[in-house]
Every structure is written in C-alpha cells, then in structure tokens.
C-alpha cells in the first residue's frame, strides 16, 4: 500500500498501482492513470467503458469481466482490446479506479 499524489489528490494505491478506494476516483485521476498505461487520450469510447465498469462494479461489488462488458455493457471485445491494448480487463479496471480483477476470464 502506498500513497501517491495524482492530479492533486492523495490516492491510496496497492503494490501494482491499482486504486484501493474507488471513492477517491475522479476524471482527472482517470486521465493520469490512463497516461501511466500508455493511453494518451481518453476518447468517448474509453469513457463508455469506464462508465460501465464503475456503474457495474458499484452495483455488483466487483469489476465486470470482458464477457460481461460485451453482453451487458454492449462493448465489443475487439473494440475493448483496441481501446485498452495489452491487458484490457486490468487496464479498464485500473483507469476506472478499481483493484485488479481476480477472475480467470
């Protein structure tokens, strides 16, 4: 556990840089976390994913799987991989202010 100043807020992060308290999240933090993952700009399509992840995680208590993002969130798997390359589920969770997903799929 570490505290880091991101976008002017003291954020709690785990060892892998995932936020441990989603309540601390805001859009500027999302942009900063995305930049850390090599995503220089968050487009409307990115925000669609982030908004779904946050809403679903809040309701269900865990971040959605890629399948759930597709079936419930209407986010095509191909598009998800294009938006968050090299680890879409992890990166979407990270940018959305949630801990690393623990599921196998």
């Amino acid at each position: 556990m570490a505290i880091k100043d991101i976008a002017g807020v003291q954020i709690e992060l785990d060892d892998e840089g995932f936020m441990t308290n989603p309540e601390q999240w805001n859009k500027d933090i999302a942009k900063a976390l995305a930049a850390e993952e090599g995503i220089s700009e968050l487009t409307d399509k990115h925000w669609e994913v982030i908004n779904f992840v946050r809403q679903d995680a809040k309701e269900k208590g865990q971040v959605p799987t890629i399948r759930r993002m597709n079936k419930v969130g209407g986010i095509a798997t191909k598009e998800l991989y294009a938006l968050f390359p090299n680890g879409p589920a992890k990166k979407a969770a990270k940018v959305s202010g949630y801990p690393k997903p623990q599921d196998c799929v």
Partner: protein
Amino acid sequence: MSEKPNKIEKVSIVISKGSLDGVYPGLIMANGARMEGIEATVFFTFFGLEAVMKKRAHKLKVATVGNPAMHMPTILGSIPGMSSFATSMMKKEMEKIDIPPVDEFIEMISDAGAGLYACKATVDMFHLTQDDFLPQVDSVINVGTFYEKSAGAQIIFT
C-alpha cells in the same frame, strides 16, 4: 544478484482432446494470455478439432468414464444420460463464473486477437473442409507451419 526472469511474450497452445473438460483448459489459457497482453496461437488437432467445428462445438460433453477424478464407478458413468447430466452441471457452474460456452468462447478468443488454426493431418483424416469450421478459424495448417508460427513462443500441449 539475480536478474528478473523475462515476461512471457508469446504462447502456442495445442488442444488435442475433444471432451468439454479436455477443451476448456486450453481455451482459458489462450484467453488468459490475451488478457495479459501475451500473443496467443491455438492449434486444434485430433479430437480437439471438435471445439471449432460448426456442428460440434456446442455439443461437447464431459467424459464420465475413465476419469477417476469424477469419483464415479465406470458402471455408473456409462449409464445413458450420465455424460449429458455431468455436462449440464459443469456448464451451469461455468456460466456462474462467466466462462462462456465453447462456441462463444472461440469467438471471444478470436476477437481478443489470438490466431486459431486447424491441424491439416486431422482435417485430411476426417475428410473435413474449411466449411466445417467456425468462421473464427484462420486456416488449416500443417505441423511445420505450426512451428513456424510458434517462433519464440512457449508451446503448451493440452
């Protein structure tokens, strides 16, 4: 001082079994690789080919005979309907943890950017054509091409 081992960059997964329990581990590993940003190739051979056949992919079953881990005497496992029952139980549990049915999983893995290939020797042996396969199968390749495509990859046989 020890250096940190290199991250796995690429995997080639061979699926050679045609039972539901024979097919899923390879699919989960292929999908999991893509989820980690690892390049993945899946090669379907022998009965594993059933996983990518249009008429078969959604009909794969759990083998209830010859598997001591089923904790079921062979004579019970061989009763008609037992395999279907075990299969529907397993599918139900998988659905609960969001693991898709085989045909949907194949689509998901393809959309994730993995290459899916059918083994030429098996295709010839069973007299199959590209038409018999799900559209996600990239092509039918021989074992030599499989090794070429696996350059720099860890090969996993299931």
